[in-house]
């Protein structure tokens, strides 16, 4: 296995442009065979393979590279797994459903799944190229170790090493993209591409925010075993209290129903701190406070500003702080520090008419509360069927650190506080 480096083709040449590959990526080349045309400061030159083997293109046509930069690898005959983007042939053979997932998996030759001595496996039948969706992630051992340490899924990381290998720098880039702490001067939300047109049939490069969301949600869904608990809550009195406060304190930010729920979560969690216990590599971590993340929709994405130590704030203070945080998300002035460290998230889709939904945990949090719309429903109240303003709360929890009974007690306490809301305003 050797690298083909950008050759020095003239005395004054400092960099060269890859004009065209004369043989396709992944094909076998013979030593001495012309394989690539390179444009120098003087002329276009053809470069030959220095050894026989399988060509793995590193630099693509149009790339301008300095002398000595690797432009290809010429390796042994075993085909290397190719990147998904270039793996079009096998993919097109699979029936695909409307949602883009394969209708059925391609059949696997039975020899591959039989157990037995390795010699029993006909080598010709062994998969010589990766199957669809089975592409191995090519990453350096260091990149793998770093990713594992930070709970990062490598499948979403773009590899910039030779042959597209994911190297340390790529993992660091991905991690920095996740925390955004490396660029505090820049708003973490200012990642929307210049063109935000959504055209049918187009492929749109994801923004850093979108990549981060995708990576963190995949990690959460894959690593945290979720369970969900649901409870219908009577919000009638909470809404009365809200209306009352709006009248009594007109100069203050009037609390929304969401602020009331946030306050209830803060009180319930401070009474039962184990409800926020996080799983961290065989250790259970009890957070230092109730830092409530507020899921806020922004242009083509989602951010979660954090209301720190909500358990120490009154309802009016919570209302003012969350109003300020949400405004700063919408006008892009939120800072990275304000988006970190939440210990539970409240996500509300009631304004879109959603009755109930289950949310994916926001790592490393162990709980997230999904709030549906509050609307009049017929319910049994004091032995009569009456119309009350009801809403459904759905708690998703990480079963590694939180169990059903604890979760039920926690959600029950939240419901109780909302249904008897004077406790929430006692420290006005």
């Amino acid at each position, binding site marked *: 296995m050797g690298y083909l480096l950008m050759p020095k083709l003239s005395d004054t040449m400092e960099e060269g442009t890859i004009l065209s590959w004369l043989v396709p990526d992944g094909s076998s080349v013979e030593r001495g065979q012309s394989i690539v045309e390179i444009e120098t400061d003087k002329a276009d030159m053809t470069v030959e393979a220095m050894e026989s083997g399988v060509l793995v293109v590193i*630099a693509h046509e149009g790339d301008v590279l300095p002398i000595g930069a690797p432009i290809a690898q010429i390796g042994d005959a075993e085909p290397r797994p190719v990147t998904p983007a270039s793996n079009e042939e096998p993919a097109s053979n699979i029936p695909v459903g409307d949602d883009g997932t394969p209708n059925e998996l391609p059949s696997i030759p039975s020899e591959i799944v039989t157990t037995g001595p390795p010699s029993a496996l006909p080598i010709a039948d062994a998969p010589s190229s990766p199957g669809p969706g089975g592409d191995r992630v090519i990453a350096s051992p260091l990149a793998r170790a770093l990713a594992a340490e930070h709970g990062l899924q490598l499948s979403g990381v773009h590899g910039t*090493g030779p042959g597209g290998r994911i190297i340390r720098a790529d993992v660091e880039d991905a991690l920095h993209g996740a925390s955004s702490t490396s660029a505090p001067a820049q708003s973490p939300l200012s990642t929307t591409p210049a063109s935000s047109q959504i055209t049918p049939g187009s492929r749109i490069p994801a923004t850093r925010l979108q990549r981060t969301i995708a990576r963190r949600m995949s990690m959460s869904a894959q690593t945290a075993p979720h369970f969900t608990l649901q409870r219908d809550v009577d919000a009638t009195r909470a809404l009365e209290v809200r209306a009352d406060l709006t009248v009594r304190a007109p100069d203050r930010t009037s609390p929304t129903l969401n602020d009331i729920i946030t306050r209830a979560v803060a009180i319930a969690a401070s009474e039962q701190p184990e409800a926020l216990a996080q799983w961290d590599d065989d250790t259970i971590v009890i957070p230092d406070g109730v830092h409530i993340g507020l899921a806020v929709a922004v242009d083509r994405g989602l951010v979660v500003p954090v209301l720190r130590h909500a358990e120490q704030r009154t309802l009016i203070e919570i209302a003012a702080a969350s109003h300020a945080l949400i405004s700063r998300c919408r006008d892009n002035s939120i800072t990275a520090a304000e988006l970190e460290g939440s210990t539970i998230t409240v996500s509300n889709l009631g304004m879109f008419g959603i009755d109930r939904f289950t949310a994916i945990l926001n790592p490393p949090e162990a709980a997230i509360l999904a709030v549906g719309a509050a609307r009049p429903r017929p319910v049994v109240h004091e032995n009569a069927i009456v119309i009350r303003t009801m809403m459904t709360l759905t708690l998703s929890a990480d079963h590694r650190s939180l169990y059903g009974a604890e979760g039920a007690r926690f959600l029950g306490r939240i419901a109780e506080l909302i249904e008897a809301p004077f406790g929430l305003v006692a420290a006005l």
Partner: protein
Amino acid sequence: MSTSPPTSVSYREALTQAMREELQRDPNVFLMGEDIGLFEGSFKVTRGLLNEFGPTRLVDTPISEAGFVGLGIGAAMSGLRPVIELMTVNFSIVAMDQIVNNAAKVRYMFGGQVSVPMVIRMPGGAGHQLGAQHSHSLEAWFTHIPGLKVACPSTPFDAKALLKTAIRDDDPVIFLESEGLYAKKGPIGGAEDLIPFGQGIIRREGTDCTIVAVSRMVWIALAAAELLAKEGIHCEVIDPRTTRPLDLEMIATSVRKTNHCVAVDEGWPECGLAANIAAHVYEQCFDWLDAPVGRVNAADVPMPYAHDLEQAALPRADDVAQAVRATLARRER
């Protein structure tokens, strides 16, 4: 006789001093080899020693490598400390049965009742248009053999200190000098400055890539590191000084810091020293590696006689620099 060593002496003279001091210190030490007495050695490493110590301590031999290496083994088993000079490493091949089957095995096969406190010195390496048969670098051959110790000094200081350690060692030591380094000058140590075997040295500190190189290749690696520093690539150059035992801890510590490694030796690539170092690095540092270990070796051909071809077949600083760049390479996002 002056007791404070000169500040800058040649690698050749450093070796002479080591032998002179050990001949003076221990009456059991004697030198033996072709043309080492009257002719003062083909590379003049034994210059002046015949006059100083006489023909019982400096024995000229016929051209019979297998014979006088065997003689040395017997002398060592009987309590003497022979220091044998083979004119070059190329002639060790005719004595290989004595070296591998006797010198390396005697202590083991006699259950530790006898040992072979013998040193076999020999220069190796190519670059002087001596043709395919006289241009070998056989460090890997000797390093392969349990029962031998192998020293490959790269500086005058190490040449003197390691040779003294070798002469005082109770086991057979293959002492591989580099023809290309005999004229290299530098500081040397005093009569009791010894270097324990298995203790490497960091010749240059760096953060981006570890280059492990032995013997003359240390200087090639340092030249490459200098080239790369101008590009902002900072290499750590490690000289293990002995290839058996090997200072694996130093190499592994460095690779865990830099996450990249290139191994350089003047021998051929297959089953070579660099291959061996790469294997150790993979075993010890797998989860710290950000790229495959690079190797730089002589071309996998008999050494050409023609000057240009010979130079092209030998590892050069540019080759090492390219290997480092390849391990650090990143393509555009």
